[in-house]
């Protein structure tokens, strides 16, 4: 409770300065009834008020929410509602529109979105550099395969176990973050990457991971034997559902205190601690959440390929996911979606081109992404989404500079 609390304003007034503007800018034009927008309920139906009052008025601008809960909504503006309604049918229609190859690519995009979202929670929110994406996905993949093959419990329990196990390993390798940070924690997770590959390549340890190279059981049910996933289209829908769920969960996380605390640690761990944040515990929480998502993505990836081998989970996979994250923009869920989609599509195109014209020039693809990431970091370090935001800002303010 603060002194001088203003009781006349129970309602949120997010657009205070913007509200005051019409009255200030054109005092002659404003009728007395309208001229007190700052104190009277400014949040209440401003656009409706302003328009019938007469032509030539200033356009209403700012945010007009009547409750804090509304302000936190995911779909807040009319244009977002329209976009949502238009966007919903697209993923449902895709299997009809796309051929097998393209659909498979979209499925891969969805899986990688989950994996990169996990990375984004650890790196984008909590700011911990983790170079063990491949290892995390491998753990998820092998664990879920083992569960599915040996217990017959079904895909979803397998995924959950894979995710939880990955989360546990992520937390274990996050423990050094108690003392070290930044670069050094990156090295510790890089070690995990190599340990994990050695572990999964070693067939003598098959009693743990079930064999270095395994075929994924076909026609497995989601839970037990129910709702079997066999065709590519069914797989697509299943992966889409899981992806949508994780996008929603991450969006929810990003607008609650937990992600704020992660971002606080990322921005300034010193003041975070002094302001009451248990830095170490929250870092581990970020590792757990991110690790879980990457593990689930790993088990979906194994389902998608139909076969697991350590070759799919090398350091290249880690770097590929970093390109996706950095290109799209760290810290924003939609940036991840954008980055993964773009990189995967471009990657496929490049591979096809190379196959047609220069089958031997295999280095060109990593080279392309290497150059791309340098350019992105130099031009707009916050990624494509932030760049788009700047263009939007520019257009909104045009012809003024600010």
């Amino acid at each position, binding site marked *: 409770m603060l002194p001088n609390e203003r009781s006349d304003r129970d309602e949120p007034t997010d657009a205070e300065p913007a509200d005051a503007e019409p009255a200030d800018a054109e005092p002659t034009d404003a009728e007395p009834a309208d001229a007190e927008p700052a104190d009277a309920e400014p949040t209440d139906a401003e656009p409706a008020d302003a328009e019938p009052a007469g032509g030539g008025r200033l356009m209403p601008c700012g945010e007009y929410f009547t409750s804090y809960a509304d302000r936190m909504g995911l779909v807040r503006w009319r244009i977002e509602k329209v976009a949502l309604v238009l966007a919903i049918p697209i993923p449902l229609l895709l299997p009809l529109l796309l051929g097998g190859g393209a659909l498979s690519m979209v499925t891969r995009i969805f899986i990688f979105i989950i994996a990169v979202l996990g990375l984004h929670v650890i790196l984008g929110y909590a700011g911990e550099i983790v170079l063990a994406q491949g290892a995390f996905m491998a753990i998820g993949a092998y664990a879920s395969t083992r569960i599915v093959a040996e217990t017959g419990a079904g895909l979803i329990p397998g995924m959950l176990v894979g995710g939880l196990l990955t989360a546990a390993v992520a937390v274990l390798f996050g423990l050094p973050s108690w003392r070290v940070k930044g670069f050094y924690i990156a090295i510790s997770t890089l070690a995990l990457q190599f340990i994990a590959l050695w572990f999964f390549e070693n067939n003598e340890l098959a009693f743990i991971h079930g064999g270095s190279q395994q075929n994924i059981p076909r026609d497995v049910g989601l839970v037990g034997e129910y709702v079997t996933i066999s065709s590519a289209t069914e797989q697509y829908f299943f992966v889409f559902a899981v992806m949508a769920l994780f996008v929603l969960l991450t969006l929810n996380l990003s607008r609650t205190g937990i992600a704020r605390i992660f971002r606080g640690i990322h921005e300034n761990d010193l003041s975070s*601690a002094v302001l009451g944040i248990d830095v170490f515990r929250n870092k581990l929480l970020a590792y757990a959440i991110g690790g879980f998502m990457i593990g689930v993505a790993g088990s979906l990836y194994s389902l998608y390929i139909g076969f697991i081998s350590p070759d799919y989970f090398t350091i290249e996979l880690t770097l590929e996911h970093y390109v996706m994250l950095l290109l799209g923009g760290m810290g924003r869920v939609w940036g991840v979606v954008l980055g993964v989609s773009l990189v995967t599509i471009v990657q496929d195109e490049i591979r096809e081109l190379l196959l047609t014209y220069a089958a031997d020039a295999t280095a060109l693809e990593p080279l392309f992404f290497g150059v791309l990431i340098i350019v992105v970091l130099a031009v707009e370090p916050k990624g494509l989404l932030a760049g788009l935001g700047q263009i939007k800002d520019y257009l909104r303010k045009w012809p003024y500079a600010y």
Partner: protein
Amino acid sequence: MSTKEPQTRLRAGPYVPPEEAMLGCRNVTKTFGAITACDDVSIGIDEGEWVSIVGPNGAGKTTLLNVLNGFYDPDTGGEIFFDGEDVTTDPAHRRARKGLGRTFQGLELFEEEDVLENVMTVQAVKERPSLLSALVFYGAGRGIEAENMRRVEEIIDYLELWEYRHSTVSSLPLGIQRRVDLARTLALDPDVLLLDEAMSGLTFDEKYDMVRFLADLNEAEDLTLVMIEHDLEVVTDVSGRMIVLNKGGVIARGTPEDVTADPEVQNIYTGVD
């Protein structure tokens, strides 16, 4: 361990034994290698007091604040008390949650985020949804967030930060940044506020504003304020009590009138006469 004033050099002035004080420390020494930053300091600050800690550069003021809020551990033998409780072994974040707020000389803000997010982050420390309700969001999580936002808007309102609500903190002028730092700390709902040169680098008007807010909090909310400040004019105007440090030790304490009249303080601190 006696309740008599622990140092013979102490001048007259109200002194609260650390155990009974809102915030206190006893026999705190802090050395960094060969350097003794704090030398056997004992202070006690009563509830609702406004105490200024002054002293020349390198006197150990910031170190003392860091020891008080748990950022540094004192050398063996030193004890810290908060609200009558021994908090010597508590890490900084736990002391903060108990109600010990602090601002920084160097403004450790979350620079890439806007003002609202900065304050919301700290508010989330106070009132944070469980992981499950955060992930589900609709229901309990949303309620907590809405309540947090209401409270944050209240703080922003109070500190007159409306127009900067969505501005990235690093783009704001220093005076506003200091106010954001204060807002952020207020979100902790502290009982004691440690201010490390909260007014350095501010213009007269900005200082005036800052003092106005602090005085209001101190009087209306009984918020205990401990402030490191170089501007003696401000210090003597606002604080009820002063503690003068030099070379890590307390050389004087008492009301501003007594302390500033003290010849040793004048000699060491102001360099006048």
